[in-house]
């Protein structure tokens, strides 16, 4: 009788060990969903998330004179963000493959030094992969002293493979106040 109940306790222990492993695994899986989500967003262009810095090589990219594409720029502040923030040109018309520079204006009207992060989004979503930025103020944080203003560059081109039916793109930036997150930190965080 004692033998039998001992055996049972043992096997219960085994079941518990296995199931605990499953539990820990699923806890990990919850966190794994974070990178999985990013990868899926990147693959599908969902969210309008644009890629990071694009290495432009003149030789590879010929300008397609036969098409014209209009790119519109939007700039908005996240709730509670006090900066003045706007594109200095509301739209440009360009040929695919043509490297173009536009500037965004930002001014910190508050009495404190603040750090901001701009997050880009492109519409329509299926054109996300065809807008390449070689230089963008959104690659790093922007720090402005009280009252300081700055003109921020964006250099980009449109890929020649942009689907035929897309003739107008919107690139919008939302500016977030990240002063709290970066106070006292010098290293920059890269967020596309």
């Amino acid at each position, binding site marked *: 009788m004692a033998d039998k109940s001992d055996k049972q306790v043992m096997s*219960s222990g085994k*079941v518990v060990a296995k199931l605990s492993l499953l539990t820990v695994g*699923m806890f990990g899986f*919850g966190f794994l969903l974070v990178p999985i989500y990013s990868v899926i967003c990147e693959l599908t262009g969902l969210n309008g998330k644009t890629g990071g810095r694009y290495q432009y090589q003149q030789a590879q990219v010929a300008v397609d004179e036969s098409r014209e594409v209009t790119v519109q720029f939007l700039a908005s502040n996240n709730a509670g963000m006090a900066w003045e923030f706007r594109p200095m040109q509301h739209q440009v018309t360009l040929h695919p493959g043509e490297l173009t520079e536009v500037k965004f204006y930002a001014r910190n009207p508050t009495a404190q030094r603040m750090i901001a992060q701009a997050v880009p989004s492109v519409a329509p979503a299926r054109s996300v992969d065809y807008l390449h930025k070689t230089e963008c103020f959104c690659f790093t944080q922007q720090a402005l002293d009280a009252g300081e203003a700055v003109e921020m560059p964006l250099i980009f081109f449109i890929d020649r493979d942009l689907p035929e039916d897309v003739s107008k793109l919107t690139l919008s930036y939302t500016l977030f106040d990240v002063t709290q997150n970066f106070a006292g930190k010098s290293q920059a965080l890269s967020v596309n």
Partner: protein
Amino acid sequence: MASGHDDHHHGPAKGIKRWLFATNHKDIGTMYLVFSLAMFLLGGTFALVIRAELFQPGLQFVQPDFFNQMTTMHGLVMVFGAVMPAFVGLANWMVPLMIGAPDMALPRMNNWSFWILPFAFTMLASTLLTDAGAPNFGWTFYAPLSTTYATSSVTFFIFAVHMMGISSIMGAINIIATIQNLRAPGMTYMKMPLFVWTWLITAYLLLLVMPVLAGVVTMMLFDVHFGTSFFSAAGGGDPVLFQHVFWFFGHPEVYIMILPAFGVVSEIIATFSRKKLFGYDSMVYATSSIAFLSLIVWVHHMFVTGMPLAGELFFMYATMLIAVPTGVKVFNWVTTMFKGSISFETPMLFAIAFVVLFTCGGFTGLMLAIAPADFQYHDTYFVVAHFHYVLVPGAVFSLMAAAYYWLPKWTGNMYDENLGRVHFWLSFIGINILFFPQHFLGLAGMPRRIPDYALQFTDFNMMSTVGAFLFGFSQLIFVWVVIKCVKGGKKATAEVWDGSHGLEWTLPSPPPYHSFTTPPAIK
């Protein structure tokens, strides 16, 4: 209190120690059930505050922030405090009796998993008394409402959810270990009562998704306190990610609350139809299919977040597919009743109401599954009507049915049948007055979770509130029936019901404190 029975030296300990140090599955089951009844009344009180405010347009009783706290706390308390612990309580009481086991496999862990709960809910409810107020971001706690814009009580909420999760996970491990290891000789898997089967599958679902819930609240904790940006776009995160991780837990969660209900109803309908359950095997397979499908449909809660067409279509079809195994179940219940010699005692009344009203809730679920239609219904009272139809006349009615069905077994006394029927009819009428008009409100465009509404919604809201108070106060009859039954009444036989079958009915009512110390023989 339900199972006091002197059994030579092995009776229960005396006084409070019996409960604090309980390792007996019957005692722990009783504590779970009493706790969940208390939470049901607390969550119901919150709901009545909501309905009182919505009786008329404009603000009468509470301010919007407190209203939001009420909707949040009502959801959390009902889901995690009432329905889930009630089913764990039933499992504690009934699984060992149904499979011929002497107790749960892990009695000490069982004690722990129960006693975490009162602390978790005390912590959660205590936030109501603080200056910051209780969480007010809805029971789905979407970021950034629950992170960037959260009240300071969010930390209490996070730790309370962690504790509830730990409790559920330990409960699930215990149930799986019990079912795997402690079945009486001859009790093969395909001979197990359906309640045991549904709980086995539910326990696996719990293990698959409760850790993900723990993960998502941990990410919130980090975002709120440690400067990470899981859900904040400013730091490279994404609030929509929150919804994915949350609903990866949240959708299986609704099946966690309904699968054991399927088990209960399958037992009861067979008993009172005096027939064997029709299509036992198909019931087992249907339950497993539902559990599997529940893991791959979560995005139907997020149709309006901006999905590619392919995504919308996949999740729409996958969701509609759930209607197939669910339909199998409904047809099996109806076929079990077909040509049965049916009698309508209170448990059977609740079970039949379950089948009818849960099916109504299932149909509105199908409507919501249609992605283009969902754009119209999203975040309206139609959604509220839908999930209350599956959760109240669904899960809660099955719990009532289970309580009436097994109360004579637990206490040894018959409950008051007349009071039981009064309770059923008032609940049945109340629930339909309460939730049916909400379909119309939703279709007409009334948004959920808002304390005020446009004038044209007044009539249906008034009806709904009247129904809410009728339903709410009739639950006091249930409390009275339980107290009366525990105190005394006509002695119950071992079989209790005319058509009962299964091992639990071979034991006397109430069963001895330690039952099946030698395993029963299974024919």
